[in-house]
């Protein structure tokens, strides 16, 4: 198992349709009658190949719409590639957006259970980690209150705490660490470093360079679905920033 990489993309293509009003019966009929496939397509990823070894941390850089989120969706197994192969080894936990599986009307505790179940944990496994999750999130008094009473910072702490403490093999982070106070951010970075020490894999997405440089050794730069550069973080960050400055 260890000889295989944690994540491997082999010539991956992903196209999305832009469907405006495509979802009603009317438009389906129209398409049948006019016999024209006027679906607009755009390439979210074009012939992208890379490998991430176990224990490596990789940053993915690029502007909005460069294909970063699509890349994470493919790693998380949310969507299959159109062409090419995506090979994953291990359990993936995604911090794709603040509290992806959270519901505002459920209490913090109920959301922890729901998220653990969504990630594939049993009742026993969840119970064993419950205390650690609540402690780490530092919201002890609020844990029995509905989530909509939480501040953004509290919600983010809970989301991070759930994802990290459920002990995934591969952690996906999508710009979430930008939120939260300095003290908690430091704690998160500690946890991420600890995570790396235990040989876990991290994929981290950002449109800025500063934050990711703190814990990623390697980086990819995506632009309009193309893989522009794959290399050491400083080198890629430098090239990406140069490109940004030249563009503006």
């Amino acid at each position: 198992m260890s000889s295989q990489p944690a994540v491997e993309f082999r010539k991956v293509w992903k196209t999305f349709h832009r469907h405006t009003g495509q979802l009603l019966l009317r438009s389906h009929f129209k398409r049948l009658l006019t016999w024209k496939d006027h679906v607009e397509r755009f390439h979210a990823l074009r012939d992208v190949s890379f490998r991430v070894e176990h224990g490596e941390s990789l940053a993915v850089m690029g502007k909005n719409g460069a294909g970063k989120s699509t890349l994470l969706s493919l790693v998380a197994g949310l969507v299959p590639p159109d062409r090419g192969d995506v090979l994953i080894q291990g359990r993936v936990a995604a911090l794709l957006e603040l509290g992806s599986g959270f519901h505002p009307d459920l209490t913090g505790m109920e959301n922890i259970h729901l998220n653990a179940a969504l990630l594939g944990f049993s009742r026993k496994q969840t119970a064993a980690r419950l205390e650690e999750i609540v402690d780490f999130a530092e919201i002890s008094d609020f844990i029995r209150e509905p989530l909509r009473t939480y501040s953004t910072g509290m919600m983010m702490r809970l989301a991070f705490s759930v994802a990290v403490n459920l002990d995934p093999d591969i952690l996906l982070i999508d710009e979430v660490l930008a939120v939260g106070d300095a003290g908690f951010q430091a704690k998160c970075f500690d946890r991420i470093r600890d995570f790396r020490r235990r040989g876990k894999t991290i994929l981290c997405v950002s449109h800025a360079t500063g934050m990711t440089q703190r814990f990623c050794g390697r980086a990819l730069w995506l632009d309009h679905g193309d893989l522009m550069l794959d290399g050491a973080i400083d080198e890629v960050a430098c090239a990406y920033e140069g490109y940004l400055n030249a563009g503006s």
Partner: protein
Amino acid sequence: MLNWTGDYWYLVQNLVMKDFKIRYRNMSLGVFWSLLNPLVMMGVLWFVFTHIFPNRIPHYALFVMCGLVPFNVFTICWLNGTTSLIENAQLIKRVPVPREAIPVAAVLGNCLQLLAQVLLLLFLAAAVTGIHRSWFWLLAIWPLEVLFVTGLALMFSAFNVYVRDVRYVVESANVVLFWLVPIVYDFRWIPAQYRFIYGYNPVAAMVMALRNILLDQTAPAATLLVKAAISSVAIFLLGLAVFRRLRPRFFNYL
């Protein structure tokens, strides 16, 4: 496509509880609201069909209730199952949760809620005709209806992702079905040449079986059960096959 391995049953339980808690957290009367609808319907239908169009069916209120409750279970589960994927679009787009679990949880969650109506029906039956050992047959027929509606929920939830009009088709079908299932009338009133069609409709079969058990206190006919079992299992397997076929592109359409 999804390399999700885990405790499937715990997941479904959590999804069911999520819907249940969200729906009832802000209501003071909670589940009792779902008892009001069948009671009002029973009252209205009883008035119309005993005072306006009189008939000689004994215990007509209970007779109608034997039709209303399985019909409600069917329509509510089917409709909520159909819209479940759209309503959980955020979850599907961000969490690699097994997709089947969502319509299945929607059906089971609504069954849990509709248990109140089933208990109301049993309570009425116990008061009118008394408890009888033929009630054991209830344990055989309810799972068949749930299986049948789960199959439909899987199929139609998948269609609804691609064409959003599907939910209105389901709503209209339910209105038509109210009159095509022997709810207000007796199966024996149906002209002989149409009767054979009814046997293949598991909802109609359910109504007839419930009347056998609760009103006549006899076991439902074996042929009725076999036909209902065949169509329930067939629809469930078909629903699952359709769902799996359409599943890979849900993400793009949600």
